[in-house]
Every structure is written in structure tokens, then in C-alpha cells.
């Protein structure tokens, strides 16, 4: 059986709320990071507030729809980002969102490696039929990364974002179970 939570560059973890809040509060101060990852206005929630949100989620228990992961680099075990999966139980579809908050780890394959783990986990453990994500047209690095992880472009919602006074598009991507299984050349030991 594969180690579903360990890739070539990263591993997926669950962290203590206090530590996670500390990192997320710092990442939130980087507005370029926020604008790449999100479509809402940038905000500056306190560590305390973030910790409360995280603890509230823990109180809700581990729901069969939600799979929140943190991402650690294998080489130095540094906490570098987050990845959240949401499973639609009726339609067997996983939605994923990812952010690498530590800038020194951008453009080096860490996010791609995490996304590969996401896709593998969705198909081999969650029984998903497809994995879906959205991204901003002004984030070409993400587009390349998702393509490397097996995602295909399915379309573009026109001018659905307004950033810096300019209208921009959003891209929609997915990878289907059958497509992914073929990409593995039948090798899923």
C-alpha cells in the first residue's frame, strides 16, 4: 500500500491549532499570497481569532466531507502551506484549495507534489470520480503546477474578479478518475 500522505518533496499533516494559527496569521500578512489563493478581500485576523476558528472546527469533529491538511517540506520538516479537500458525497467530487505560504518554497515543485498527493488520496481513498479546483487567470504559476499534477482546463468564467481596478477571469480545472488511472499506466502499487 502507498503512503498516501508522503510525496517526493512534502508530507501532509494535521497540526496543533496554536502552531497553525501562528503560521496562518503570518501568511495572511502577505497580500500577494492572499490574492493568489483567494477571491475575497485580504484580511488580518489575529492569531487568537484563527486559533478559535480552528478549535471550533475540531469541536465539529472530523466530518466525512472535510479533509484539511497542512503541508510540511520533507527535507527540513518546515511547515510551508495548507491544502483543504472537500468531498461532495452525493456526486463523488472533491474540491481542493491550496496555498504555499512560505515564499522561499514557491516555484520549486512543493505545491505540485502536494497536489499529486491530493489527487491520489481523492481517488485511492475517498472514492472520488473527479477532483476540481479554480484559480485566477493572473496566476500562471498555479496553472502550470496543476497541469503537472494532471488537471485539465475546463473553461473560464469571464471577468468574475475585480483586482486593482481591473477585471480578470477565473479558470476551472479538473482531473477525472479514468484519466488519472490511465496516467498511472496501471501502476498503483
Amino acid at each position, binding site marked *: 500500500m502507498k503512503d498516501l500522505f508522503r510525496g517526493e518533496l512534502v508530507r501532509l499533516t494535521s497540526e496543533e491549532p496554536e502552531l497553525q494559527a501562528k503560521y496562518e496569521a503570518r501568511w495572511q500578512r502577505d497580500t500577494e499570497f492572499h490574492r493568489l489563493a483567494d477571491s475575497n478581500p485580504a484580511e488580518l485576523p489575529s492569531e487568537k481569532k484563527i486559533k478559535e476558528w480552528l478549535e471550533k472546527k475540531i469541536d465539529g469533529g472530523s466530518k466525512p466531507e472535510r479533509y484539511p491538511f497542512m503541508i510540511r517540506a520533507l527535507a527540513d520538516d518546515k511547515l510551508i502551506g495548507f491544502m483543504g479537500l472537500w468531498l461532495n458525497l452525493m456526486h463523488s467530487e472533491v474540491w481542493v484549495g491550496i496555498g504555499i505560504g512560505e515564499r522561499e518554497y514557491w516555484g520549486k515543485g512543493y505545491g505540485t507534489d502536494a497536489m499529486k498527493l491530493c489527487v491520489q488520496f481523492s481517488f485511492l481513498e475517498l472514492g472520488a470520480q*473527479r477532483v476540481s479546483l479554480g484559480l485566477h487567470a493572473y496566476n500562471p504559476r498555479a496553472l502550470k503546477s496543476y497541469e503537472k499534477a494532471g488537471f485539465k482546463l475546463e*473553461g473560464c468564467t469571464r471577468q*468574475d*474578479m475585480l483586482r486593482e481596478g481591473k477585471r480578470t477571469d477565473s479558470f476551472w480545472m479538473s482531473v477525472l478518475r479514468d484519466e488519472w488511472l490511465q496516467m498511472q499506466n496501471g501502476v498503483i502499487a
Partner: protein
Amino acid sequence: MFDIATQLFESEDVRFGPIDYEKDPEIESKWTHNAEFMRLYEFEPARPLSAAIVKKEYEKLEKRADERKNLYPFMIRAKADDRLIGKAVIQWIEWTNGNCMIRLGIGSADDRRKGYGTQALKMLLRFAFAELNLFRVTAYIGEYNEGAIALLKKFGFTEEVRRRQALEREGRRWDLLVFGLLKDEWQNQASV
């Protein structure tokens, strides 16, 4: 073409009205016992809902609309007798981006194909663009919902995304389509 006297909630044969907690729950409860309506209106599992549950859902909806301010629900009524015939909603409003999602349904098969949906969608779009001042309207439709697809195309919506095999129904997979209409496209189309 839009002056202050234009009634946003009145059309030829239908009007938008508020929820009637006395009469509406029983009617909507009937609709939910028809799986076809539920499957055209929702991507969630169809399920029959008693009038008491529908009433609770109305309360939750109004509470959410009040708290979040990103949600505008409407009941669609036939003008002739004020009878409830459907519902419509503008939801997921992103105020900073000027984007939103719309849904619209005519509850009973007897009330379909009579132009009520067309009139209601016209009002809904006018409200989104001319009252909420949104920049674009988005709609999600299952590929099996041919009536809705034809209606959106009539209003100038563009099919922007085809989410391959995103829905599971009737023992098979279906595409989920994302349609979009921009304010200037609506204005051009409305003036024709």
C-alpha cells in the same frame, strides 16, 4: 429605459413577493414531493419535506439573508390570484467582485411552458444589474436540464465552463455547465 417608476417586482403575469408563512409552506412541501422538481432545482439529494420543515427552512433563509447580506430570495406569484408558483434567488454575492449566482424554479409542471420563468428571470436579472449593481451573473445547470439551458441562452448567457461528469444521477455521470452573463451583454440584449 429604467426610470424610478419601474416596478422591480412586477411583470406581466407574475410578481415577486415576500414569503407567506401561512400559505407557502404547504405549497412548497407539495413541490418537494415531486422528485423531478427537486432534481432540476437542486444538486443536493431530492427529499420530500413536510410543511413544518419548509417553514423552518424559510426562517433559516430569512435569517441568513439578514445576517450575511449576500442573499436575496424571492417568491414568484401568479398576478391573477397571487398564487405561489415558484421561487428565485440571487445568492453567493461577492460585493467586491460584483459577481453572484442565481437560481430559479417553477414548482408545478402545470405552470411551466407558460412564460412565467422567462418573466421571472427578466425581473431577477434587472434586480441583479440595475438594483444590486452587480457586474456579472453566474448560473450552474446540469446538462440534463434542457429547459433551463434554453432559457439562459435566450437571455444571452454564455456557456463558459463544462465541468465534465461532475454530477451523479440516474446511475450515470452528467456534465455540470457554468453560464455567465455580463452587465453590458444584458444591457445590449435588454434593449433589443
